[in-house]
């Protein structure tokens, strides 16, 4: 599980994340929605231990990220929006190194690496340098790495960007299967269809604050809509429905 309590991140006088509280239970896929610059990535980076919160607390599977960073990180799979991969390593070498970082050792490691490469349809490229990979292939490789150590919680930033429909479908299936096995998944996304289709609960963030939280139906009710599509609800809540004079602009 991922638990965030009153999380605040200030950059000088600017408050990027302003007292966020959210809770992702085991087996839940929690959608984290918000317009650009709302504070989604900053929140996820604090959960992953890449940024120090100004105040508040983050717990991953019961371990405080600030006080027990190694234990918290060991049980988290983090997929950032701009992942780093060593370009001059092969996919196999990168995954082996990644496994070592999480303390995976012994004969089982290569088996697990192959299992992941098969799952994400990258086995053919195991011995190719990462620099020759397309964006989508790199994205799938990062997922392989993130799930290699069988994390019990996952924080993922924009997982569908750059994936073809087949890749996107694969990721959705993997997330669903993981959630069935009790993994808590916090997923930031701009693709509202994905959020509507996959997430049991949603949190909508605007200017660093959670402005709505609950199931898709609860959020619809909160926004005062009936059977509206999630996009209309989202735009109504985040104030982005005012369309520009398109004719003029185009």
């Amino acid at each position, binding site marked *: 599980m991922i638990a965030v309590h009153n999380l605040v991140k200030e*950059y000088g006088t600017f408050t990027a994340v302003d007292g966020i509280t959210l809770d992702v239970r085991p087996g839940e896929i929690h959608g984290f929605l918000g317009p650009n610059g709302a504070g989604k990535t900053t929140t996820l980076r604090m959960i992953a*231990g890449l940024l120090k919160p100004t105040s508040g607390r983050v717990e991953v599977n019961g371990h405080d990220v600030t006080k027990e960073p190694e234990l918290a*990180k*060991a049980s988290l799979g983090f997929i950032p929006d701009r992942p780093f991969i060593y370009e001059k390593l092969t996919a196999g070498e990168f995954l082996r190194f*990644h496994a070592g*970082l*999480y*303390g995976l*050792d012994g004969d089982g490691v290569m088996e697990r690496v192959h299992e992941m490469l098969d799952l994400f349809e990258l086995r053919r490229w195991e011995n190719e340098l990462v620099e020759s990979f397309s964006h989508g292939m790199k994205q799938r490789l990062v997922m392989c790495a993130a799930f290699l150590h069988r994390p019990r919680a996952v924080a993922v930033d924009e997982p569908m960007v750059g994936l073809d429909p087949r890749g996107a479908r694969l990721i959705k299936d993997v997330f669903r299967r993981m959630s069935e096995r009790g993994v808590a998944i916090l997923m930031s996304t701009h693709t509202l269809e994905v959020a509507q289709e996959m997430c049991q609960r949603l949190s909508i963030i605007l200017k660093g604050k959670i402005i709505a939280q609950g199931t898709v139906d609860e959020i619809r009710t909160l926004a005062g809509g009936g059977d509206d599509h999630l996009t209309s609800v989202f735009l109504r809540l985040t104030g982005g429905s005012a369309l520009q004079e398109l004719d003029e602009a185009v």
Partner: protein
Amino acid sequence: MKGAFTYLLLPHLWSSRNRAQRRERDDFTRALLFGGVAAGVFAALLYGAAWLTWQLDDYDELGDYLLRLGLSWIFMTFLAFLTFSGIVTALSTFFLSDDLRLLLTAPVAARRLFYARFTRTVAQSSWMVVVFITPVLLGIGLARCAPLGFYVTSALTIVPFAVIPVAVGTACTLLLVNVFPARRARDLLMLMGFLFAGSIVILLRMIRPEQLMHAESLPDVTGFFSTLQSPVTPLLPSFWAGELMFASLKGGRDFVHAGALWSTALALCVGLRAADERWHFSGYSRSQEAPKARFTKFHTLDALARVLPLSPVRKQLLVKDTKIFLRDVSQWSQLLLLVALMLIYLYNFRVLDLGRIPYMSGVIKNIYAFVNLGMAGFVLATVAVRFVFPAVSAEGPAFWLIRKSPISMHDFLWSKFWTGLVPVLLLTETLTIAANELLGVDPFLKIVAAVAIVFLSLALVGLATGLGARYPRFTADNPSQVAGSYGGVAFMILAVLLIIVMIVLLGWPSTTYLMFKLRRMTIPTARLIMMATSLAAAVAISIATWLHAMRSGVRALDAMSN
């Protein structure tokens, strides 16, 4: 192994191995070029050190004293270099490096990460010092027929000697990053570094070491050497390293200074590790923050561009290149160092005391005019490799913007050429005219040199732009990295060759003219034709180099787009 800090260094080793295994086009030529240059420098340093040590042998105790002092000063120079290099490298390895985004999300203990990063910092900051000091110590050892212990001691001295200043530099970085955001700290450091280097160079020049060459100032020599020793020096690791090396050169052992070096290095490592465990994460976290940057808008530049008789494309490229250059502290701050070097260069001509050789001063002055031309050419080549050669690579990942725009690669590259030519020409022309004026050379030579610089600028700026387009490095972190690449080294070699050819082609007709003028004789027609041919050849070679390099650059860019 997986728990050891060395595991975190594996990706770099594997990457190097993979790079070596997957050879690319031109790799062999590249290796040959770099290997040749490296071997040449190594041999020159080794021979130079050995020769100097042999010379000092003639002065018995004074020679020993000077050698001991020299060793201490070599280490002192490296101490300053390593400290500054440590600060800058640590900024990158501990805070700005991309792979930290991966490593910090993994359950890696802070201590383990520290050791891996510190090892990398020490290696990255000190490899140049090691490469430089090895042939020097080897030369000294060979000249003095030093025992094997000297070479073992050398290795055992260099390690802690490199660790100490790099640890101090890393500690400074840790402090800085916790006060300023890392990117702002980097800019600040760059500026401070170049200001520091510039002032040191000016200060050293102001001591006027040429006075020591006069016989009447012999008593000053002892005074000069005594100023090199100060009460602080024995407290510095450079002194310990120098003493240790000197003792082992003499076949002795100096446990006191060896102990001082190793214990200081270890103590600093332990202290730094504790500080890193306490403050690294907060510093790294700050380095991820991107506060709104303050920057100058350069409205004057926009206004100036509006009145320039250029096409809109060239105008916009010029404005973009100039703004980016002026907003990047690491770029323009290097100009400060260059200006300092130029001032010293001109100052040297001012204080040059040629009156001491009354009968020869006229001839020497005119010879100096060609030395000056060569030096100006070398300055030109250095400025071109550092600022013009990386011009295409500087587009970096944004090069797609140019490629998808309706701009021909010809227009793009020529715009880069003109942007580079104007400042480079102004700089070197000023340098040449001012130096020749201060020297008081013959008016004919003044004109030849001034015209030669115009053609040399066209040739070298064209060569730098063209080769920069043929060997771009869009993924380089900074322009210095581009300048040090295969294409950059190839440019420097070609540039030096061109300068030599130009000096020969200009020197012969010019000196012939002066000789005839001095003897008040008329130049025979055949000789005149040969002189004109020589001058015309110089002009033709410059223009051919310029246009051929540019054409080849445009072709390379076109090939890239297809």
